[in-house]
């Protein structure tokens, strides 16, 4: 199983009991969110995904600094040591 690093900013760390950097297993982004939900409860998934199971527009998910919207979204396959960053979709002004 692929092992990747999860990065969560302070402002979103309520979803991970305050943890901001840790390793987790999963072959795709979808796997990762499933595994994070098992670890931190259903509320994690509900905060990240909408009712249809897609990432909410207020969240950006990056793999090695590339937005998954420019990859295969939740189906994007992961490699060992990939870094998965969750960020509020806040940009510009």
């Amino acid at each position, binding site marked *: 199983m692929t092992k990747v690093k999860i990065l969560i*900013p*302070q*402002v*979103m760390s*309520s*979803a991970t009991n305050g943890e901001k950097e840790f390793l987790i297993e999963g072959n795709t982004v979808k796997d990762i969110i499933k595994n994070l939900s098992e670890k931190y409860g259903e509320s994690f998934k509900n*905060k*990240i995904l909408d009712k249809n199971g897609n990432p*909410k*527009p*207020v*969240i*950006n998910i*990056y793999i090695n*600094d590339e*937005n998954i*919207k*420019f990859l295969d979204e939740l189906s994007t396959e992961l490699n060992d040591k990939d870094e998965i*960053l969750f*960020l*509020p*979709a*806040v*940009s*510009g*002004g």
Partner: protein
Amino acid sequence: MRVKSLQCRICKKEFRAELNYVCDECFGPLDVIYNFDEINLTKNIISEREKNLWRYNELLPIENKKNIVDIGAGYTPLHKAKKLAEKIGIKELYIKNDTVNPSFSFKDRPASVAVSKCQELGLWAVGSPSTGNLASATAAHAARAGIPCYIFIPYDIESAKISQAQIYGAHIIPVNGTYDDANRLASYAGDEYDIGIVNVNVRTYYVEGSKTLAFEVCEQLGWVAPEHVIVPTGSGALLCAIQRGFREFNKLDLIKEEKIKISSAQPEGCSPIVDAIQNNSDLIKPVKKPNTIAKSLAIGEPGDGIFAVNTVKKSGGYGEKVNNDEIREAIRLLASTEGIFTEPGGAVSIAVLQKLVNQGKINSDERTVCYVTGNGLKAPEAPYTQPPKFSIVEPKREVLQSIIRR
């Protein structure tokens, strides 16, 4: 306390007015909610105040006036554009000329509020990711406040914007990537180093400054709202703030009008918000590599995108985009008819106005305001594909005969 709370724009959960910008329940953005019952703001009170954005201070989120960092932003001219209106084919057109702010763009408004709030929150440094205009606005206000400033910019923005930001003494960090890459790095800096990144972790307060573009237009029209406004759109934050400004003035009975059409103007090459409006979609499709001369609007992953789409739709306005040639033409048209030199980002609203009038979407008697948000000297090469060439003459009187024709 003038600020009642911060409220999630999506689930409406309320939070204390601290350094926070995201709801911990649904990760939606937070907005400032004021104690409207305690606000006593009348036309007379406002009229007697200094002519800058702080004349509306009851509707800005700074509790203690000693924290205000002011270099004179705001209360820019509302210019009645008779010649341009004639050319375009409408009767009543105004240009909100924000090219003349202290650092020469509208960004001085949100930067003034955000840097003031950083002072109030006791943050040791400020910063921003920027396509250029916010860089200078943040750096100028940080200089005034006497605190360090860290600016994250795509390496390839206009050189005039980089040198301007540097002159204020900011630490300039050119990023090998797009605005969205710079934004991600700045977000990390804010999170890890306790820096007030004005449009990221101070964003909730920052956007309040942009509301004053709505307040001023109403005041300058004689306490009447326009019927239609055209807003250059990057992230969508300005557009949403202008709508909130009109709503708050209406709530305080400072204007009677409730329905003001708000149209979004974007450049081709980076138009995710306009595309969503035109396709009647609830999804923003991000742009990986924006490609436009309107670099100040080159934000491929607009943070307030979906909220801007909803705001335009609810208002009865439109979304429209224009190409580089149309933008260049609009720069020249505005300068040659009204004497206002704007950068490409500001000209996008003029080019879109022309397009909407041609399409019959703006009536000739609609009281219309175009927001012109940045100064042309920030992108002096933009109006031309080839630099203009001039013939050099000898300093002799005879040469004048062939040049000057009465």
